[in-house]
Each structure stands twice: as C-alpha cells, then as structure tokens.
C-alpha cells in the first residue's frame, strides 16, 4: 500500500515534470536553427557530464560532494521507488537500497541547507532556490523513514506513515516540478545543453578548447542578435540551463570593479526575455551594479538592448571569458555578448564612447589610431628591422601589432627585437604591410571590418615564406592562430614568451643576472583562458631566475586587466577601474614587479596611480637578465 502510493506519486510527478519540460522547451525551441549532431551529443553526454562538468564543479570540493550526494541519491531513489510499484520486488533489500540512496541524499541535503541557510555565499541567488534545502530534506527524510520502516516490516502507525508520504510527496513535487522555473530546471536543460552544445569541441571529446568567435554571414538579412529569438535555439537552451550559482559573478572583473555588469544577471535577463511580458521582479540575486532590479522587461520578439539589458551592461564586458571558464553549465556568455554587440554595431551603429571613432579609423586607415601604416616601425629606425617585402622570406615573422604605435609597447618590442638579434634569429616584419589584426573590431561587434582586415592580412601573409609567426600581442596571437583559419591562414603562431623560452632552453640566450625583488605574473586572458598558455611564461620567468609569487587569481582563473574586448574604448564607468582592482591583487603578493605578457595589460596596469609594483613586460625582464652586469 505504502509502496504503491510512493511509486504512483513518483510516476505522476515525473510525468507532470516531463509535461512541464516539454511545454518549457517551446521557449528555447523558438530560437534560430542550429546545426547540431544530436546523436553524437547523446553519446558524449555521460562523459561530458562526468569529466567536463565535474572538472568545473570540483573546483569547489564541498559543492561537488553535496551535488554528488543529492543528485546521485535523488536520481537513484526515483527508479527504486518506481520499481517498488511492482509487488514482487518489495523485498527488504530494495527498501534497504532505497534507504541508502535517501540517506546519501539526506546528507547532501544537509550540506545544501548549511550552505544556503547558514553560510549563504553572496553570489547565490535566493528566491525559489531558498526552498531547495527544505524540498531536499523533506523528500529524503520523509521517504527515508518510510523506507527504513518498510525494510523493518512496517511498525509505524499508518497515519504517521501517510503523513510522511505526504511530506515526501511535497518534496518530490517541489523538486521535479522545479523543471518549470525552479532549481531542477538546470538538470534537464543542463543535460540537453551538453548534448546540443554550440561549441562541442570545447569538451574533452573534442579539442578541449574552443574560444574562437565564429564568422558571421555578412549576407544574412539580420546581422547579430537583436531579440532573444535571434539566438540559436541551443544558445537559448544554454541560457535556460543557468542555475544561478554565481560563479561567473565572482569571477567577473567588471562586476568586481562595480561596472554595471553581472554575467549571472545578464544570462537571467536573457532567460526573462524568453517569456512575453516578463520582468526581472522575481530575480533574487545580485543585479548589475548600480542598476535597479525590477525595471527590466521584454519578450522573445522584443529588442534585448534597451528594455531588458542596458547598453552599459553590454559594453562593460571585457570578453575575458572568466565567466565561461567558471560556468558549470557550460554557458557561453561571451558569444552572447558578441552576438548582441554585432547587432548593435552592424545594424544600429550604436557602438558607444570612443569605440565608434576607433572603428571609423580602422575602416579608413587599417589601424585603430588612424596613423599612417608606415609609422608602425618608426620606433625601430636604429634597430634596422628587416622587412619581409624586401627579404621575401624568413624563419620568424614578427607580428608587431598596433602596440607598435604606442610608446609603452615600443619599449617591450625593442627588448624583444634585441633578444631576437642576440639569439641570431632570422626574423622580419611586415612593416607598412601589416594591418590591424581585427581583434578590437570583432569584439566590438564590427564583424565586417574584422573580416575585411583578416582577408587582406591573410592575402599578404600568403605572399611570403616563413616558418612561423611570433607575436608579443596575445590578441593578435588568438586572432591569427584561431580566427584567421576560416580565412585561409594556416601558420603556426607562437607567443613570444614560448619562443623566448625555447631560445633559452636551446642555449641561444643565456640568463646571467637576476632581477631583484619578487615577480608576480599576470596572465593575459587571450593567452591563458583563450589559448591555455599559462606555463611557458612562468617557465620563462623561472629560467631567468626570478622569485615568482602567484596572485590569488592566476593561470586559467586569472583576473582581467580591463583591456580586452574594446572595454577601454567603450569606457563604461564603474565604482572603480578594473586595472585598479587587478593591481590590488598584485599588491597583495608583495612582489616588486608585475610581469605582463600583453601590450594591453601593460597599458592598463601601468595606468594605475599611487604606490604599486613596477609593471614590466616579460621581454624586458629577459633582456635585463641576459645582459651582463654593467
């Protein structure tokens, strides 16, 4: 009798949940079509969950344990309870197994309760999620007592057993029906998102990393995403998988500096937009700093920017991918930002701040500063750089980047050139033939200018013979290495830190003197998270014998300097500047020097006023270390 009731309750709840999920699916199925290999996704699902998702979740051991206990216990309990509907199976061992599953779930539920009700991490959303521990505990405790009782032969008075079943049933309903708008929505959508992910090669069964933006078809009727339905359906599915854990919020450099961007809220805004006439009144997490909650409103076919998301929120993003790196639901926040920016820039011309002027300069002069391209090598008159147009071929093509127009970057480029000379590297530059790589244009949504620059740069590069491209600019590195492929460039692109490391290891450079004072290395986003290169710069610093200390946020989880994604141009105001926040991290290490490996990082961090560590580009440190003591 009890077993039948339990079984029926679960079956009924699951059926209702399925129905709700199917209705819910209409929201994300309204998105644009996307080419998805569903079968491959299904096959890869279990291991994507166990390997890729787990790798993210397990960064916090406590979270991964309670998740394994609650989810594992709950998922195990459901089929067991259904099985108990068959009279022949109502053996005490099955009740015992169910008890074990529920006990595990109870333990997990207590951990969830402690986290949500006692510890209460600031980044967690409240709302429906606040009830989650009660639902977990109600289900696990009530059914556990019932199961133990049944295993023991049923000694409880029937009114009590019935009462317990009702409590457990509420918990079950609360959990399963939460696929509608509750916590369990993430389970269904998360699983489906893993199956139909827009970047399947980011998983371990693919390349393991996929950070390049995909080319936009510029002939399309409607460029970029204006409305929620302009996103591909599997992207909407991804947004809907958000569990509001707030890991992105904690990682976001814009949020930390009080700029009006909270990636969690951004995704939730897009989720809000999946329903007509919805507002963000029910959102129970932190908002976009400085912006009120309750005023965002929209619908699937209404423009996102304006009613739902303020333009400042969109343009505050530095595209650093810290949110993507942290998201256990594998949501691609940066792709969403770029899709939205593409519409703003290409269809509306609404690029804010100095960005519009820079895009104009890029279109007119092929560099963001509007300077004659021949002046890219002005700083190197006395270094007499070989130009590829004259030497025709070389081993290393040194891609200078637009930093070559900047005083600060010229200093590190001079150091790099001196090192290449010292090591006897056969190198050349493109000189006036080098155009901006298009990174800034692309991140600002100007895909047309990016594609134009990419095509012309690729045409130039294919005219010459060289073995590899070396650059000190991670933005150029990422663009040339990963985003020029669709335009026909297939040359190895090496960051100068990796190249210099090889020169040292091959004995072509020799470190002879040591820098005084500790050095802390700041990972550039486009080298670290975008390209996974966090070891070579560190090995290089170790090779020149500096004392290296790590900031609290480093490597793949490093924090952005604020210089990416055109953010210095859109210049959205916050409570602080992003580089000031990052410099605080550096100061906390007590290091005398912050080593940087990106021209943007050097500019942003060197712009921090007040007492602070010296900002040195790695090449400068290597040059000093390979120079004999005067």
């Amino acid at each position, binding site marked *: 009798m009890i077993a039948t009731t339990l079984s029926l309750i679960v079956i009924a709840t699951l059926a209702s949940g399925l129905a709700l999920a199917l209705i819910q699916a209409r929201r994300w199925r309204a998105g644009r079509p996307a080419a998805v290999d569903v079968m491959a996704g299904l096959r890869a699902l279990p291991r994507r969950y166990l390997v890729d998702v787990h790798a993210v979740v397990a960064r916090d051991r406590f979270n991964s344990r309670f998740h394994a206990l609650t989810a594992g216990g709950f998922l195990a309990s459901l089929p067991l309870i259904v099985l108990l509907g068959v009279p022949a199976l109502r053996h005490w061992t099955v009740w015992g197994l169910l008890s074990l599953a529920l006990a595990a779930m109870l333990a997990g539920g207590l951990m969830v309760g402690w986290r949500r009700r006692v510890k209460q991490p600031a980044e967690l959303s409240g709302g429906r999620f606040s009830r989650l521990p009660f639902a977990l505990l109600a289900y696990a405790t009530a059914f556990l007592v019932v199961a133990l009782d049944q295993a023991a032969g049923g000694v409880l008075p029937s009114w009590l057993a019935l009462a317990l079943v009702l409590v457990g049933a509420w918990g079950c309903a609360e959990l399963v029906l939460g696929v509608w708008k509750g916590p369990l929505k993430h389970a269904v959508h998360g699983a489906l998102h893993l199956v139909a992910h827009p970047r399947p090669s980011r998983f371990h069964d693919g390349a393991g990393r996929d950070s390049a933006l995909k080319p936009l078809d510029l002939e399309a009727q409607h460029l970029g995403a204006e409305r929620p339905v302009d996103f591909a359906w599997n992207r909407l599915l991804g947004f809907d998988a958000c569990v509001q854990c707030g890991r992105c919020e904690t990682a976001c450099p814009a949020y930390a500096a009080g700029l009006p961007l909270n990636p969690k809220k951004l995704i939730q805004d897009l989720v809000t937009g999946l329903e007509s006439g919805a507002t963000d009144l029910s959102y129970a997490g932190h908002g976009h700093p400085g912006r009120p909650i309750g005023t965002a409103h929209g619908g699937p076919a209404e423009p996102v920017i304006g009613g739902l998301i303020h333009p400042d929120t969109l343009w505050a993003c530095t595209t650093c991918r810290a949110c993507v790196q942290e998201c256990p639901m594998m949501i691609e926040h940066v792709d969403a930002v770029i899709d939205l920016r593409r519409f703003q820039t290409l269809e509306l011309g609404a690029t804010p701040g100095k960005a519009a002027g820079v895009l104009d300069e890029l279109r007119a002069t092929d560099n963001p500063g509007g300077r004659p391209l021949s002046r890219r090598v002005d700083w190197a*008159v*006395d270094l007499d750089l070989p130009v590829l147009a004259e030497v025709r071929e070389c081993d290393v093509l040194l891609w200078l980047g637009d930093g070559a127009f900047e005083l600060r970057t010229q*200093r590190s480029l001079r150091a790099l050139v001196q090192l290449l000379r010292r090591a006897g590297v056969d190198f050349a530059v493109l000189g006036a033939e080098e155009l901006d790589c298009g990174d800034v244009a692309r991140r600002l949504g100007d895909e047309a200018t990016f594609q134009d620059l990419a095509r012309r740069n690729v045409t130039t590069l294919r005219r010459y013979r060289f073995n590899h491209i070396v650059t000190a600019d991670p933005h150029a590195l990422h663009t040339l290495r990963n985003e020029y492929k669709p335009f026909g460039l297939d040359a190895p692109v090496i960051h100068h830190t990796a190249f210099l490391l090889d020169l040292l290891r091959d004995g072509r450079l020799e470190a002879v003197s040591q820098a005084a004072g500790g050095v802390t290395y700041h990972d550039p986003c486009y080298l670290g998270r975008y390209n996974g290169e966090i070891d070579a710069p560190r090995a290089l610093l170790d090779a020149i014998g500096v004392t290296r200390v790590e900031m609290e946020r480093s490597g793949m989880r490093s924090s952005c300097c604020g210089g990416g994604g055109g953010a210095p141009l859109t210049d959205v105001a916050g409570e602080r500047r992003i580089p000031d926040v990052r410099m605080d991290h550096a100061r906390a290490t007590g290091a005398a020097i912050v080593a940087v490996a990106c021209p943007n990082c050097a500019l942003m961090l060197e712009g921090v006023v007040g007492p602070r560590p010296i900002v040195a580009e790695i090449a400068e440190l290597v040059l000093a270390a390979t120079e004999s003591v*005067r």
Partner: protein
Amino acid sequence: MSPVEALLRPLKIKHLTIRNRVMSTSHAPSYGSDGKPKERYQLYHAEKAKGGIGLTMFGGSSSVALDSPAAPWNQISVADDSVVPFFQEFADRVHAHGAALMIQLTHMGRRTKWDTENWLPTMSASPKREPASRTIPKEMEDTDIRRIVADYAAAARRCKEGGLDGFELSAAHGHLIDQFWSPSVNKRTDKYGGSLENRMRFGIEVFEACREAVGDDYVIGIRMSGDELIDDGLTHEDCVTIARTYAERGLIDFANILGGQARDHLAHAIILPNMSFPVAPFLYLPSAIKREVDIPVFHAQRVTDLNTAGRAVAEGHVDMVAMTRAHIADPHLVRKLMEGRMDDIRQCVGAGYCIDRIYAGGDALCIQNAATGRERTMPHVIPKAAERKRVVVVGGGPGGLEAARVCAERGHSVVLFERNAATGGQISIAAKATWREALTGITRWLTQQATKLGADLRLGVEATPAMIEAEKPDVVILATGGHPSHGDVKGAELAATTWDMLTGAVEPADNILLYDGTGQHHASSCAEFLAKRGALVEIATADRMIAEEVGATNQPIHLRELYKLGVVMSPNLQLTEIYREGNKLVAVLRNEFTHEEEERLVDQVVVEFGTLPNEGLFLDLKERSANRGEMDLRALVEGRPQPHRGNGHAALYRIGDGVAGRNIHAAIYDAARLCKDL
C-alpha cells in the same frame, strides 16, 4: 597621443633617417685636444647616443682655415686631413648606439684671436672691431675669399671622409658668413657688399663649393639667426629672405635657427638664455622660417623639458628640437622618455654653469651632473654594488642628497638626517633671490630620486653621534655644509650676512651697504633681492667689477637688474672696518688702487664672504671612525674604492662645503665620486 610622442618620430633628410626629433647642437665644451676630438670628447657624445638622442652635433665653431684658430676654447681644426681618423673613430662610437653625428664648420672671421696658434690676422668683410673678441680684422681681398671658400670645401670633404652624417656651417653668432650678411659689419662696395643680394654672395659661394665637394647626397645645414634683435643688424625679414634663398637654391638641407647675436655682453646672455628667461623664448623665429622654407628646421634655445620640446614639434614650429644643455644635465633624456620614466630626467635648471665655465677658460661641466664630460671615470648609470652596506648621510643639501641618491642606486641602505624640515641646504637660500629660484630644481630632483630609490630621509632631525651610531652604519658621510663667514674685518660682528637677509632672519633696513667678498652670484642676487624690497643698496667689491666671478651668460643679467633697480655699484673698494655711530653704521672702504679711504653712513652693512665648514659633528666622530675621517685622495681621484674597512667602526667621510666652502658642482662631484665606488 601626448605631444612628447611627436619627438619619437623619425626624420628623413635625403638618405639619412634620424631616429627621433631630439638633438644636441654643436657647441664647444672645450674637450678638444690638439684640435682633435679625442676620447673625452667622443665619450661625451657617445653617452648621448647611448641615451637615445637622434642626432648629436659636436665641434661648435670647428675651424676650416689657418686664420680661424681652433685654440680658443680647445676647439677642433678641420683645416687639414689629420682630423679624419678621429672623425671615423667618433662616428663609429656614436653610430654604434644608433644616433647620427654631425659637426659644425666655420670660419670665425673677426670673432677670434690673432694672438694665438698661427698668429695670423683675423679676417672679415670690413675692418670693423669686434667687441667680444676685441680684434680689428683685415678686410678680405679677392684672394682671401678664394682661399677661404676653398678651405670650407676641403673641410666639407673631410667630414664626409670621416664618416660623419653631415655638417652645418655656422652663420650665427657673428661668424664670417654672417659678418658678410650683416650691414653692421659689411661696409664693402664690391659685389660682396651693399644690397642683401650682394651680402649673401660670399655665403652662397661657400655653400656651392661645399656642395660640389661632397655631392648632393650629403647633408649640409646652416646655423643662423632668425633675427639679430639689434638696430643695425639683420632683421627678421632679412633672415627669412636669406634662409629662403639658400634653401631654394638647394644649398642647404636643414636650417638650424636661433634668435639674437653675440656681439656684446648682454647679447651673450640673451642668445644663451639662462634661468631668468621663460622656456623656449625664441621659438617663434624658427616657426616663422619654417613657413617659408621646405627643408627641416631645427632650433635650440632653452628648451629644457620634453613637454615643451614635444609641443614645439607636434604643433609644427620646428622639425627637430635641440636640447643641448638639457642633455648636459641628463644625456639619457630620450631613453627615459622611451622607457616611460620622464620623472627620472634630471632637468636642466638653466644655471648656465656649463657655458659660463667655457668663457672663463674652463671645460664644460654641469652644475648638477658630475658625470657629464667625465664619462671615462664617472658613470651616468650607477651600477649596483656587490655588497649592500648601511650608509648614514648627514645633511640634505646637494652634496648629501647626491650621496644618498648614488648610494641608494648602488643598492645600499641609506639614512639621511637633515636638521631642517625640508631638503635643499644652501640652494634653498640662494633660490630666494629673485630669478635664481629655478636652482631648487637641482635638489628637488635629488630628493625625489633618493626617496624613490628607498633612501630614508629623516627631516627635521639634527643628527648626533649617538643617533648615527644607533644606525650601525658601515659608512658615514657628512655633508653638513657651512655657515656664513663674517670675514675678518674690524667690527665684522656688526654686519649681517647675505644669508640673514635672504632667509628673512634680518629685515632689510632703508639704507644698505652690501659688501661682496666672493664675486659670485650671492652678493649680486642678494642686492637685487634687497633693492626689490625697497632698500637703497650700494654694492661694493674689491674686484674690478661686480659679480666678476660670474660667467658671461649670467653676469650681464645681474648687472642689468642692478642697474634697473638703481643699485649703486662700487668696484675696487676693500671693506676694512665697520663701526657704530649713533643708531647707524659706518663702513670704511679703501680704494684698491689709491689706498684712499671712503666712509659710508648706512643703516645696515651686509657682507658676503662665503662659508666656513660646519665641522662639530665631524670632530665628534673623527676619533671613533675607522679612518679618522680621512679620505684617501689618490683612491678618490683614480676611481678606486676607499680602502677603509670597518673593524667595528664606520668609515667617516665629509664632502662639499662641510670640508671647505666651494660650490654646488663641487659638492655634487665630491658625493658622486666618493659614493660610486662605495
């Protein structure tokens, strides 16, 4: 883009690409030896090249002919081929650091001495006496013109053979070419005199001959005034016409423009503007000429900071900015700009110490940078010491601060005690005297550098032996400076000192006799200060003139100001006695030549007799030190570390006016020379 970044754009002149827009003009630091630019001269310019300069020009007034002697100011003679190997060595040294190297060639005409070197009469367009050199030249004949034109051409060829990147001909400061141009000198009636066209002829013949000697693919420039700023000289319109004519004929590839001339005393002070002038006072002249010619225009004249220089280029006034004295103060100026270290630039304060020494027959030295011109022995970039020492410096004047700075650069741990609430020492007092204010730049920079390098400056703390020993120093450097001497005249105690007046310790009375016993800036600038406060001032000295020890670019400013302020100047009088009469003082002055005595009845007598060392602390510490306070002078001069080693006691040295009253440069050189080897 900041205007300073405009300085880092290359400049192309014909085949030559100069890496940036910052240069140093040809000048005569008196480093030449036997008429050749040897090691000292070459290292001085190589340091600028190392420091990132685009173009460095050497050899101000290098002579092309036998009757333009190179001997005055130890200049360079390009009058024969023996100089060529030195040019080659020089060019290699500078090119190795990526800079371009050029020279100035000239025939000085009447602006030189006949009683030196070859004892030949001086030459000019007309036999008019030149006030500055005091020579009366011979009027040039056609044979002289032919010979000297050929001499110019031969010298031009030697520049090219020597691997120099080019040269300029001087037609400024009253040299032979502009002697022909100027109606005040050229009274000829032949084809070289009369109309401006005729007066330009000699110069054109010189340039044509030079061009023929070196070809079109060699850079030739001109140094000339944009306005002589005198009634009977070349007007601005004349100068524009000359520059345009020479440029249009393809004779010159750049015009290096300055303002003024150098015929008389005040003209010297104006053409080489000191700290009493605003920054870049004559920038309007090259700017105007640039609008008339299609060749690059260069300019020098008190452009002491990169922001001014950057604006001059960015706003299109000039193509290249010469920062000659700025490089004497800091030859690494451009490198520091490139490295984002503009705050580390030791900026020229315009004291004119470098140039004034030349006119007094010395070599060019910087008032604040002891390494300039001493590159063989003194480093511009202080290397780290092998061993970290604890150094205590007492005194925050220029000597003590330089000691703290150099020791901190060496990596030592430095504590500096200064009894006043602020650093600066005597410079703070000197700077109170009207236009001498910019002197504070010297100690401001030193203080900033010492602080930045981690020296612990304890201000408002009078050091005692116990406090010093508590720091457990390895080395103690006393830069305790001096106190003003009252002299040993009878009744000296009745006199106030220039310090009393400048610091405000004594209020100026109505009627003051100021006696100058040193002939330096102190008394003159104090007289200006007192007169500006409303006092009637007479300044007396035993010297032949007031401020006799002050050089040619500063003394005229002092004299001009004293005259303007109505200060009575009484040279040739020795102060012999001061006595009280009622509530007034009587100063007894004795004529140096007649020995007759005069008396002045005044409210106040102020004296300047220099300083005597503050040596109390030294004497207290002497017996407790490892070396009894003795400096090993041979080691000091030969650039070796002082031999003294602890055995539990610190080595003790004293520097600057704490040893004997001298000047700012002496204090800084004392400090840098000692500390670079500590």
